[in-house]
């Protein structure tokens, strides 16, 4: 969840019907897409990416986040990552890979009934940490794990 999007939703709510349409899910994601944090996804260092995507750069290490990834990934193009957050009121889960050309991989914004769990597959250019950042109550919590990559997933 990023600041731009928040203000976007606020401003559209002020505009009236459109805000209602968005929250009711009547407007296609295309209309909401302006909120895709381009700068954060194009940032080449971890701090800028985290700030751009989540609004703040200060992270606290937390043992309440379980990050599951292979110790050695034979193929960097497909690295399965599972993040489980036991932090109450988890608002979003982000996955960042500092050694990739652009570290920010994905941000998952969770609904109020959604469990703090996401699983996906990512590309890794070389051996790197994988950082999972959880946002809860305006604070950021993170945990990381090193994944060894024998064949990179970028460039080919």
């Amino acid at each position: 969840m990023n600041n731009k999007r928040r203000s976007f939703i606020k401003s559209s709510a002020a505009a009236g019907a459109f805000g209602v349409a968005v929250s009711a899910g009547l407007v296609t994601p295309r209309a909401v897409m302006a909120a895709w944090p381009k700068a954060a996804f194009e940032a080449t260092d971890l701090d800028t990416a985290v700030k751009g995507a989540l609004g703040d750069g200060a992270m606290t290490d937390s043992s309440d986040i379980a990050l599951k990834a292979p110790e050695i990934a034979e193929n960097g193009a497909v690295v399965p990552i599972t993040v489980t957050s036991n932090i109450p009121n988890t608002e979003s889960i982000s996955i960042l890979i500092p050694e990739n050309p652009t570290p920010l991989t994905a941000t998952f914004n969770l609904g109020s009934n959604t469990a703090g769990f996401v699983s996906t597959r990512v590309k890794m250019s070389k051996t790197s940490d994988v950082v999972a950042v959880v946002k809860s109550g305006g604070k950021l919590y993170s945990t990381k794990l090193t994944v060894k990559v024998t064949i990179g997933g970028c460039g080919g």
Partner: protein
Amino acid sequence: MAKSIKVRAKVKNGETVVKALISHPMETGQRKNKKTGKKFPAHFIQEITCTHNGADVLTADWGTAISKNPYLSFKFNGAKSGDTLKMSWVDNKGESDSIEAKIK
């Protein structure tokens, strides 16, 4: 693009487990065409939206580092068997697709 999403949602002990597979090239824009030396233009999914009963259960912003033919799994509460789950994606070229699936 038709039927690019395969989604399965199943209720177990009150919790719905959603698993989805999307067919998409997820081109990073960094891979080079060996014959011409030019880079393949970036083509990747930017936004995923998943709704149940009109409420967002998951929205995601993706970058280029999500693997080709993305897999996504998550869990949420409050759904029952027979409900409809809607999932859609939009990529950086403005292409999109959506699907509705019955929760089992």
